[in-house]
């Protein structure tokens, strides 16, 4: 994609003449200076508020700090992977419901999909954390975070799968039916395997949303990366450094997942089907 972006970006401008070249150089210099000044101001603010003191950063040189953050990261990965598997299964089931030729099932699936797509994952977490226990069902904290994250993702995944099924050429279905396969067999043997291959990059990019949603695990006191960071903050009395480091870790993880999904999309030639914009929560 980036090759295409660059070409479009550059296509907007004619080949620069001597005057434009000069202007570009001046503009580049001024903007570089502005960026440098901005960065300097930020560093200065850190300095005058004492946030650059060694006390706030030195514990990052200790293995114990990283081990603790790593344990949190394992918790995050565990929730994300289990939620990913559950939402894949639920997503496929909801998609089958949505495209079913039995109207009540189709309508019901559509309502369920729209519900989970239209409700914030935080609200679903409060449902499992505050509402479910009132009915006498006390879930372990792992499931109190994993189930709402799975449900929130399943709605979006159902639509991704549906887009994948629609992307399989109609002729495939017609051919399968005409050689005598039943509609069910056509779906399971011909359409679904191709659809799954088409949506692989999209599924990977959806993983970003799942990882983002797991960060609210502290609500249910499940030890994920964010929760462990909060503990670290109380032990070292250092809010800024810990939150910045943790935010950076999340950004790098999600960036890596996104790059992987883009690379897969480019290699396979299948587009990334998302909710157009993923849920930024």
């Amino acid at each position, binding site marked *: 994609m980036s090759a295409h972006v660059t070409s479009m970006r550059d296509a907007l401008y004619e080949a620069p003449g001597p005057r434009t070249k000069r202007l570009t150089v001046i503009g580049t210099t001024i903007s570089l200076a502005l960026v440098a000044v901005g960065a300097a101001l930020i560093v200065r603010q*850190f300095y005058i508020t004492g*946030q650059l003191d060694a006390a706030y950063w030195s514990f990052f040189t200790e293995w114990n700090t990283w081990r603790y953050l790593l344990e949190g990261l394992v918790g995050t990965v565990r929730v994300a992977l289990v939620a990913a598997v559950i939402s894949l299964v639920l997503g496929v089931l909801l998609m089958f419901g949505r495209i079913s030729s039995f109207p009540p099932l189709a309508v019901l699936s559509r309502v369920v999909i729209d519900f989970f797509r239209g409700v914030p994952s935080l*609200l679903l977490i409060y449902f499992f954390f505050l509402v479910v226990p009132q009915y006498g069902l006390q879930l372990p904290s792992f499931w109190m975070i994993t189930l709402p994250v799975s449900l929130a993702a399943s709605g979006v995944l159902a639509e991704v799968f549906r887009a994948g099924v629609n992307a399989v050429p109609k002729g495939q279905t017609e051919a399968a039916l005409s050689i005598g396969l039943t509609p069910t067999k056509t779906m399971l043997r011909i359409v679904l395997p191709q659809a799954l291959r088409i949506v692989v990059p999209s599924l990977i990019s959806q993983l970003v949303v799942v990882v983002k949603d797991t960060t609210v695990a502290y609500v249910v006191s499940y030890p994920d990366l964010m929760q462990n960071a909060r503990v670290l903050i109380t032990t070292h009395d250092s*809010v800024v450094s810990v939150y910045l480091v943790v935010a950076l870790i999340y950004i790098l993880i999600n960036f890596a997942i996104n790059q992987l999904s883009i690379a897969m999309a480019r290699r396979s030639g299948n587009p990334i089907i998302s909710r*157009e914009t993923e849920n930024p929560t």
Partner: protein
Amino acid sequence: MGFAEILELYGANYAKAVFETMSMTFVCFCFAMAIAILITVLRVSPIKPLRIVGDLYVQIFRNIPGVALLVVVAYALPNLKVVLPWKTCVEVTVVLLASAFGSENFMTGINAIGVGQIEAARSIGLTFGQTMRKIVIPQALRSAVLPMTNLLIATMLSTSLGSQVPLNPQELTGLVSYITTRSTGAGIVPFVISALCYAGTAVLMGVLGNLIDKKVRVIR
């Protein structure tokens, strides 16, 4: 407790919460659009450092989890002598997140136009400004309708981050946690009311966005 009882006890709170969620959504979306346009201009500008700043902005804020950004804005910034009211913290967080996705939508819209059209525009003698005004921006805006509708919905869902800081009045998600911890035996009803408010609005936004998209879409 039943619907009637909850609404009698907390009806006023719900009215305020709906207003709070919707007004935050509206304010954040407007600011996010303005910043998204600015960032997109940086990203297509011919000046390299500005492009890098724009790209970096988008990569940071589309990959950071909302909660991680909120805690930085709400709890880390005060240590740097930047103290914002709670509600502003939530709004700043949502705007930063949404503007990154908004800029991505605009870039996708611009990229979809195709190099050929720009070359054609230049070859018939349009200036850079004219190419932008007559060719690029109208098409980019039209093809951005559906993604931006989804972004509006996502912005509404992100305002639920407001439940993680003490807001007064509360928004729809925070109110559920408030009612459920205050009234024992409130049951599922407070959750259902809030969920229906969100999902109903989301469906409505989706339908409207689709209608607008059908009217203005560029068929290629």
